């Protein structure tokens, strides 16, 4: 009964989305007040019903209801509670339901809280949000019903992919999805504004908190995903340019560009068409990402294997939404008034360069991700595009971008003087020069990209603080603090990436018991290997003593885990974090002579990569709080003016 209730709630929500779209279209075209007034409540009820359906699915997973096919395929009564819970979205159907839920709840949120936009544009926005929702409801109800029953009910479920049984991963998809779907709201705002030809500061200000929120969550998601891959896959790398990783990076790049251009539109009424375009592109990248991960057309360690029927369904949705939005853009954007003018040397100018560089990097990642697909279509040969392409193509652009990042915040809006800008950047440039000198002297031959990365990290680290220079810090607005901290975070991350790639030490050994090996500043001794049993896996666990110089020795316990259902093996690296880096140890197979394979890494300052990511997200959060607070202070006045 409960599963049927979930399905019923989903059908009702879908029907309401249809109603929302219909009322929206009729209301906007006729201007009839009662139709316009009906859209907001419908959006809210739709959100409640979808959330109810999702809550029911969670309940079915937590109680392990084995009469539901999805539960049987992804759950088991032996699983720890957290993973029963997380199992709800650790599969295709559940994650699509989560996607729709977030989409509907975001739409409900817009309906409840958005007050600054003129009513027709807002209703057009809600209609666009309903249109996106309808496609995904159809996808769920016709191609991926999460509530389908199985008869007869089996005695036990099949469990969850062991790679997904990790607390980090339990909350990783929701974070990313919230980010992806937050961008759907920006997309709907753009479509709404195009329909009513109302692309202006109010539109930008309404859209900005959603972009900011989505961007914060994407930043967190990517950072957490990177750390997850680093410690869970046991490969010792933090970014693999895997299609699924790229699928989350591409919307982030577009959202970053959008975040900056929307500020130009909100403050200076400039970059109208470009901002609308980016809003469309950002959500398109979310959907393209979903499609790539879901359709099974790209090979990846994290891709869900899904049949081509579902792939075709998502492809059709992509065609309708992205194609439709781009066509609307082509038809309407010509009638959007051009924005305010500005000089090349100005804050706007720097932001335009930022946007162009981000778009170029986005293009590089997109082409690299899709190239294998295109090559196979043309030549029939399978190939993969690896880090060498991405690093050499995107790396230099990222460095230029970071240099622009140093200049942008100290430039004035509308018009500035190049000499004055350089004077304001004097100290950061000096620091960059000192870093360059130090690195060249102390670590010659580390490679040009890591070298420039360290230099840029030093310069930008200081340069990002420049906007606070000679300011009353207590009266500096929160969103300025946010920008400063986010930019500082980029510098910190960049420093971590450069240090890791320049100074990592790696040792692969076949170790006898009691034998000592060296990696970086550490001495490692293999003491023992024992089988251990976990709640739903068995493992071999090594005991390893590590010692740095004459410091106190400590013990590490890397494991190789074997899961029976479904059969799979995972590496649990043992990672020790110290102030200046991480020691990373993986135990592998044994050979006939009783030696055990050990992979040892010393990764100096690698943690800065993720600490920087967290700083970037924190900066975004401060900005968001600052913006929302300011709007709440100003909004009532505007509303009754």
């Amino acid at each position, binding site marked *: 009964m409960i599963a049927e209730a979930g399905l019923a709630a989903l059908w009702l929500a879908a029907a309401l989305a249809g109603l929302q779209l219909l009322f929206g279209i009729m209301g906007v075209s006729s201007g009839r007040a009662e139709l316009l007034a009906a859209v907001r409540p419908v959006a809210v009820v739709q959100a409640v019903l979808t959330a109810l359906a999702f809550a029911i699915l969670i309940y079915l997973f937590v109680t392990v209801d084995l009469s539901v096919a999805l539960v049987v395929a992804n759950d088991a009564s032996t699983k720890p509670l957290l993973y029963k819970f997380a199992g709800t979205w650790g599969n295709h159907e559940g994650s699509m339901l989560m996607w729709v839920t977030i989409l509907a709840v975001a739409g409900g949120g817009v309906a409840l809280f958005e007050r600054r936009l003129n009513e027709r544009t807002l209703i057009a926005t809600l209609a666009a949000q309903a249109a996106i929702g309808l496609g995904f409801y159809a996808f769920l109800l016709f191609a991926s019903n999460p509530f389908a029953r199985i008869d007869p009910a089996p005695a036990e479920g099949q469990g969850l992919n062991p790679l997904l049984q990790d607390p980090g991963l339990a909350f990783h998809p929701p974070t990313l999805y919230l980010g992806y779907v937050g961008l759907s709201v920006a997309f709907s705002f753009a479509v709404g504004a195009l329909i009513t030809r109302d692309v202006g500061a109010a539109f930008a200000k309404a859209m900005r908190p959603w972009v900011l929120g989505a961007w914060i969550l994407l930043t967190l998601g990517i950072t957490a995903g990177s750390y997850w891959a680093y410690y869970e896959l046991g490969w010792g790398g933090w970014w693999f340019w895997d299609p699924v990783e790229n699928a989350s990076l591409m919307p982030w790049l577009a959202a970053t560009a959008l975040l900056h251009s929307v500020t130009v539109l909100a403050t200076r009424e400039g970059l109208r*068409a470009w901002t609308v*375009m980016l809003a*469309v*592109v950002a959500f*398109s990248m979310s959907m*393209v990402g979903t*499609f790539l991960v879901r*359709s*099974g*057309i*790209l*090979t990846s360690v994290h891709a869900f*294997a899904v049949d*081509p029927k579902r*792939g*075709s369904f998502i*492809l059709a949705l*992509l*065609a309708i939404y*992205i*194609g439709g939005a*781009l*066509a609307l*853009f*082509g038809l309407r*954007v*010509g009638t959007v008034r051009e924005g305010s003018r500005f000089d090349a040397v100005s804050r706007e100018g720097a932001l335009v360069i930022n946007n162009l560089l981000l778009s170029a990097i986005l293009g590089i990642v997109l082409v690299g991700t*899709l190239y294998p*697909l*295109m090559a*196979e*279509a043309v030549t029939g040969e*399978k190939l993969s595009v690896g880090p060498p392409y991405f690093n050499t193509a995107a790396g230099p652009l990222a460095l230029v971008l970071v240099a622009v990042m140093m200049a942008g915040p100290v430039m004035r809006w509308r018009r500035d003087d190049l000499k004055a800008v350089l004077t304001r950047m004097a100290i950061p440039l000096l620091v960059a020069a000192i870093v360059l000198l130090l690195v060249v002297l102390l670590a010659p031959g580390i490679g040009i990209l890591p070298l420039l990365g360290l230099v840029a990290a030093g310069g930008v680290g200081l340069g990002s603080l420049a906007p606070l220079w000679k300011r009353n810090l207590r009266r500096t607005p929160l969103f300025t603090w946010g920008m400063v901290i986010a930019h500082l975070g980029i510098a910190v991350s960049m420093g971590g990436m450069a240090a890791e790639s320049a100074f990592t030490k790696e040792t692969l050994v076949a170790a006898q018991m009691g034998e000592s090996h060296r990696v970086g500043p550490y001495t490692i001794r293999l003491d023992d290997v024992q089988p251990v049993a976990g709640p739903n896996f068995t493992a071999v666990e090594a005991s390893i003593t590590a010692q740095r110089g004459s410091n106190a020795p400590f013990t590490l316990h890397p494991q190789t885990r*074997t899961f*029976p259902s479904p*059969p799979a093996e995972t590496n649990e690296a043992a990672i020790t974090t110290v102030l200046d880096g991480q020691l990373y140890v993986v135990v592998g*197979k*044994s050979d006939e002579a009783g030696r055990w394979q050990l992979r040892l890494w010393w990764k100096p300052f690698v943690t800065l990569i993720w600490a920087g990511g967290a700083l970037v997200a924190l900066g975004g959060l401060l900005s968001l709080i600052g913006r929302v607070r300011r709007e709440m202070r100003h909004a009532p006045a505007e509303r009754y003016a």
Partner: protein
Amino acid sequence: MRKLLIWLPLAMFLAFMVVFAGGLISPESKTIPSKLIGKPMPQFALPAGIAGKPGLSSTELANGQPHLVNIFASWCIPCIQEAPQLAQLAQAGVPIYGIAIRDRPEDLGRFLARNGDPYRAIGGDANSSVQIALGSSGVPETFIVDGKGIIRRQHIGAINPEDVPGLMSALAAAK
């Protein structure tokens, strides 16, 4: 010029859609083929996976006639599904050699008793080392090896009834 720029995103998107659609139509892109096709079997010597049957070493596989090397395990559900097809191939005179992954003799014995035993020899690969050397990503997986011990073809996943004719002709071609 401005007109063209406005429509450029849509044009680019349509081009991508064509590629996507193409990717969906060619469905076999789900698996990664082994890099070893056209190359000799890696060197290995596996102990007998089960009492009363010989183990398997790579030198035996260069025995002058084409054959199948089937990677399987008693704990593998799709392996049960492909058992009738393996039996049919063995009946037709195809020499089949097995590599049992992470298995125990008693489990293996039960599996063969229930599903039939088409194997001339079974090597026990207790820690997947040969499986990894072969670039195989899971069980079951089957390789067609010619008389000189060169891998000719890789079949990923269970052998279904409709795959049998293709395998037979590939074996004939490997002569």
